[in-house]
């Protein structure tokens, strides 16, 4: 059976959820062969095998951490050469997208980014994308070379599908450009203990209406009562009330959770681009005319400082 190369996003061996979703999609096209790089690469094997990886190619070298992107491109290319896959699937993280794009140039292939679904087709895999701030849905395929496709989080369910997951060491020789951009220092983002924004089943976001960094605890309390991630609109981030890493929208993260709760967010196109594909949308806003209400399944016109704490208390009470 044809093999599909899957690039693994992991933190010290802990496989991130979007990679497991990718395995579900890869199995629709062929047999997944995973590529895990860097510290802890071999520790990914068990989780990958459990979700369908027939093989796990691993490599570790100081270059992966010390230099930006290119060493990983060299490694993924080595895996590509070794496997000759029918497609290369990569999670749509900031770094992995760049790795995928450079690989595509090297192997003379087209690339599709930020797919939200993938199915097998007569002429190769067909990718579904949400475009123009999710106002259109397109179906596309790569028409030259081996398809390289990056897939957004929450695009497929995680499914158990035990496979061999045999670990094989990947031999990588780094090219001249591998050491071009040095990572001089790295500061890991502090964990908030909340779910990852792009991976969360529920996202609670605050915007201009939150009116100050000190007020964001209202949003955080609701998020914590629901086990949700916290998001912020560009207005709230630009005002310095919440970190950019939590920004939802065109220039921040694009999320597609089961439930999205927008508090004090008007719903400008910039924001809609990042959350419009959420399954259920709820909004709380003082302004009945706010465009966010065009998107909602349920909306409350009112003061978020009244409505949100009441909702939080109610959630806590019901959860007992």
């Amino acid at each position, binding site marked *: 059976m044809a093999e599909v190369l899957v690039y693994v996003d992991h*933190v010290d061996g802990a496989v991130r959820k979007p990679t497991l979703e990718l395995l579900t999609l890869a199995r629709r096209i062929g047999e997944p062969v995973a590529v895990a790089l860097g510290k802890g690469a071999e520790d990914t094997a068990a989780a990958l095998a459990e979700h369908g990886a027939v093989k796990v190619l691993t490599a570790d070298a100081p270059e992966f951490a010390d230099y*930006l*992107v*290119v060493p990983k*491109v060299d490694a993924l290319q080595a895996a590509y050469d070794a496997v000759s896959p029918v497609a290369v699937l990569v999670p749509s993280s*900031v770094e992995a*997208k*760049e790795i*995928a*794009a*450079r690989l*595509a*140039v090297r192997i003379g292939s*087209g*690339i*599709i*980014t*930020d797919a939200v679904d993938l199915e097998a087709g007569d002429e190769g895999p067909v990718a579904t994308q*949400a*475009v*123009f701030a*999710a*106002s*259109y*849905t*397109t*179906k*596309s*395929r790569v*028409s*030259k*070379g081996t398809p390289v496709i990056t897939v957004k989080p929450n695009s497929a369910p995680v499914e158990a599908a035990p496979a061999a997951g045999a670990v094989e060491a990947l031999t990588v020789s780094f090219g001249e*450009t591998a050491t*071009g*951009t040095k*990572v001089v220092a*790295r*500061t*890991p*983002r502090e964990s908030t203990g909340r779910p990852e924004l792009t991976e969360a089943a*529920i996202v609670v976001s605050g915007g201009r209406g939150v009116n100050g960094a000190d007020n964001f605890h209202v949003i955080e309390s609701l998020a914590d009562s*629901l086990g949700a991630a916290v998001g912020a609109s560009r207005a709230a981030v630009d005002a310095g009330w919440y970190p950019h890493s939590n920004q939802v929208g065109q*220039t921040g993260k694009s999320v597609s959770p089961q*439930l999205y709760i927008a508090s004090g967010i008007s719903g400008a196109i*910039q924001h809609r*681009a990042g959350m419009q594909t959420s399954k259920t949308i709820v909004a709380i806003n003082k302004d009945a005319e706010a465009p966010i209400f065009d998107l*909602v*399944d*349920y*909306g409350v*016109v*009112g*003061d978020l400082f*009244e*409505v*949100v704490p*009441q909702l939080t208390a*109610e*959630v806590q009470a019901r*959860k007992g």
Partner: protein
Amino acid sequence: MSLRIVVCVKYVPDATGDRHFADDLTVDRDDVDGLLSELDEYAVEQALQIADEADDAEITVLTVGPEDAKDALRKALSMGADKAVHVEDDDLHGTDVMGTSLVLAKAIEKTGYDLVICGMASTDGTMGVLPAILAERLGVPQVTLLSEVSVEDGSVKGRRDGDAASEQLEASLPAVVSVTDQSGEARYPSFKGIMAAKKKPVESLDLEDLEIDADEVGLEGSWTKVESATERPARTAGTIVKDEGEGGKQLAEFLAGQKFI
């Protein structure tokens, strides 16, 4: 020696307008107002700041696009860039990221460069991978998605705020840089700037000038094919209530009904 900066910009349909697809499934650029992609304004701004710090620098803005794309170049020139290069050719219609990056790379090499600066993504295609592809094609370091950037003694330094960590990066010139919307507010063109822009040189190039075959680009030469584009159905109107003191409880009731609580 003069620091040669090339800023790649894109002319895009206004994101606040009613964007849609043409019959051949390319982005419709005729029926919607176009403008310089907002995210490229940050690239122009950082180029201007880097040029200010350098003893001697020259900023060229470069675009690939139809006749109207000159508007994007004009805007960048009015912000303060020195000259512009416009790659325009009927055979470019429908070119995807692989073709566009090929054209840009050839035009950048022809123009001569020490530093290429791009925005983080276009506001229409939103792929965000073109800068990485350019670095690959040009064979120079990639220093992308920077929230802070500076150039000193022949090297570029910057801060990249990634998914899991914030990284300090450093590379020797020549290099390809991209900057995010966190890199600093872009300036508005002054009246003087707008007047001066009208006199700044805009060089026009076509595929022949860049020694690119027509079949390497365009819709036919595209590395990807859009098979269908469907307008997303409007979301069905939801329930909207006015908070009369029970809004939070009503919302909880809804969420419970949907099994979220």
